[in-house]
């Protein structure tokens, strides 16, 4: 071997990273897979429903469920980026709803008198945050998999919810609470309406009219505002703050994060408290909108939250994910979950069939995007 190639001298290691314009950097965004899936679902459902899914009422109903999904999936996403799971979200929703409704009906604990929506919410939030802290602390201290610890809390909290209902209320549901959102600003923040100006403008533009000729829909559910708020805050925290860097570092390689001074235990405990907070917001919206509570509320929501986070590009093993992807994922799931109302000819169980298909498709797309970004890791 006397001939060696010499034209490699000016080629540097850095040259191996392909550079490109805006389009190729757009293709390297982690959200691109979930965006494509979302666009497909929007078009397919818009077409199959003759546009009914996106008329005034359709939009309101769709965004109602999209927001529900989005609120809990955002919490689940951040926790998954830090490398942990929370299977107790659904039971936490049931627990928080029970707690608030029970306080409103039977009064505050410790003989503190009648509850207002604000005090019921604050007492409940204190409990759910404490539970989130407890779950996080158990995971961090015991070094057990969060899958097992939160699975235990899935059963434990659902059981506690049912037992509390039967002991205090003699029935596993509460209905017929006063319509607090009419009298309390706090309750209407969760159960009322939002973006009335949007539908007013729609009406003013000559559409959004019911058969009697009046304005048809008056506004989105209040939870849309909560979803936007949760998403915006989560996006800023994750991508722009020190805490966000710690969340990524904790999920990617915990020991190296620890070695560099990242408080990985505090990060994880805080995120378990965040999923508990998201579950509580979810429950508050439900209780104050319908003025009812049921021991079965929130069932299976933890799995939907995880599925949405995964569809949104979050990596199951942590260290990678995007809040914007979760927004796309929530829209996809919400539309599919509601599709049966707009396309009367299909069987409602197609929801699950479709969820399965979407989940796999999105994961395949996300994997190829992620490999492009991270060099195949």
């Amino acid at each position, binding site marked *: 071997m006397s001939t060696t190639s010499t034209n490699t001298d000016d080629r*540097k*290691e*850095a*040259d191996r*990273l392909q*550079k490109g314009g805006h389009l190729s950097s757009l293709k390297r965004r982690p959200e691109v897979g979930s965006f494509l899936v979302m666009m497909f679902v929007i078009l397919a459902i818009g077409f199959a429903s003759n546009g009914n899914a996106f008329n005034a009422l359709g939009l309101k109903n769709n965004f109602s469920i999209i927001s529900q999904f989005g609120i809990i999936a955002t919490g689940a996403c951040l926790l998954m980026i830090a490398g942990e799971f929370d299977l107790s979200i659904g039971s936490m929703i049931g627990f928080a709803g029970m707690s608030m409704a029970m306080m409103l009906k039977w009064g505050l604990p410790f003989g503190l008198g009648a509850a207002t929506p604000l005090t019921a919410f604050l007492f409940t939030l204190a409990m759910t945050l404490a539970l989130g802290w407890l779950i996080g602390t158990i995971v961090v201290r015991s070094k057990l998999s969060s899958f097992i610890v939160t699975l235990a809390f899935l059963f434990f909290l659902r059981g506690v919810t049912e037992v509390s209902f039967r002991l205090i209320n003699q029935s596993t549901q509460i209905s017929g609470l006063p319509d607090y959102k009419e009298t309390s600003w706090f309750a209407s923040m969760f159960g009322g309406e939002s973006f009335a100006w949007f539908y007013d403008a729609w009406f003013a533009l000559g559409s959004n009219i019911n058969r009697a000729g009046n304005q048809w829909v008056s506004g989105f559910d209040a939870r849309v505002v909560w979803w936007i708020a949760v998403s915006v805050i989560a996006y*800023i*925290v994750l991508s*722009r*703050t*020190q*805490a*966000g*860097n*710690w969340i*990524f*570092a904790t999920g*990617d*390689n915990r*020991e*190296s*994060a620890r*070695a*560099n*001074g*990242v408080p990985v235990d505090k990060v994880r405990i805080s995120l378990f408290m965040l999923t508990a907070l998201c579950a509580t917001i979810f429950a508050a919206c439900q209780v104050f909108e319908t003025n009812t509570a049921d021991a079965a509320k929130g069932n299976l929501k933890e799995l939907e939250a995880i599925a949405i986070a995964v569809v949104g590009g979050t*990596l199951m093993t942590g*260290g*990678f994910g995007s809040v914007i992807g979760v927004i796309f994922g929530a829209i996809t799931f919400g539309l599919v979950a509601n599709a049966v109302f707009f396309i009367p000819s299909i069987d409602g169980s197609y929801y699950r069939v479709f969820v399965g298909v979407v989940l796999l498709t999105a994961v395949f797309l996300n994997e190829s995007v992620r490999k492009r*970004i*991270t*060099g*195949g*890791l």
Partner: protein
Amino acid sequence: MSEPLIRATGLTKRFGPFTALNGIDLEVRKGEVLALLGDNGAGKSTLIKILSGVHQPTEGKMYVEGKEVSFQSPRDASAVGIGTVYQDLAINPLMSVTRNFFMGREIYKGIRPFGILDMATMDKIAHDEMVKIGIDVSDPRQAVGTMSGGQRQTLAIARAIYFGAKVLILDEPTSALGQKQQMGVLKTIMSVKARGDIAIIFITHNEIHSQLVADRFTFLALGEVIGGGAKEDLAHDEIRRLMAGGADIGDLEKELAEVQAGGL
């Protein structure tokens, strides 16, 4: 001669009845590379762990810039300027170069931990620091997973230096790398040495690498220093003999030839 930047005398470490290190003396000056060589089990790792504060020595003293120090944790060691780059590098492959560079020590405006990151400044610093020691990452926002092993090593070294390492301990930085990348890391070591204000302790298995960059050598075997000296004073064969733990095993090539001649 100037005061050594780091000096250790009589370092001894016992794990129960097992003596891992037995009276190690060591000193490194500014702008100097000390190669720490020895076979597996010679006590290299234990020595690094003592110097970087992971273990506490059973006996012996350590001085940094003439002042006696004792470390309760790796944090104490890095506070006085001992930066250790371990074999696993403590790098997160899915995160960007900048985010890795500033992991745990982010530049931010506002209230910790929700301060807004100053990404532009951090990108610039990460890029400039890497260029200073010889690697131009075109995009500091690229994931570390896309970088070669040598570049990752450079990132870890640049990070340690930027955050105030006066003594840089490199734990086998060239093992598990390809030939060209090994040379890249050696170049990095040389450019750090050329700064003149940092003392480097370079742990390696590879005598050729150590000869290329080191000023002085210390050989460990069975927990003791069995030899050492300045580069000029040591012949190549002597280095090889000491590398093998001082035992007179002769020339490896000759032994292999004998085995082959034996009819295998």
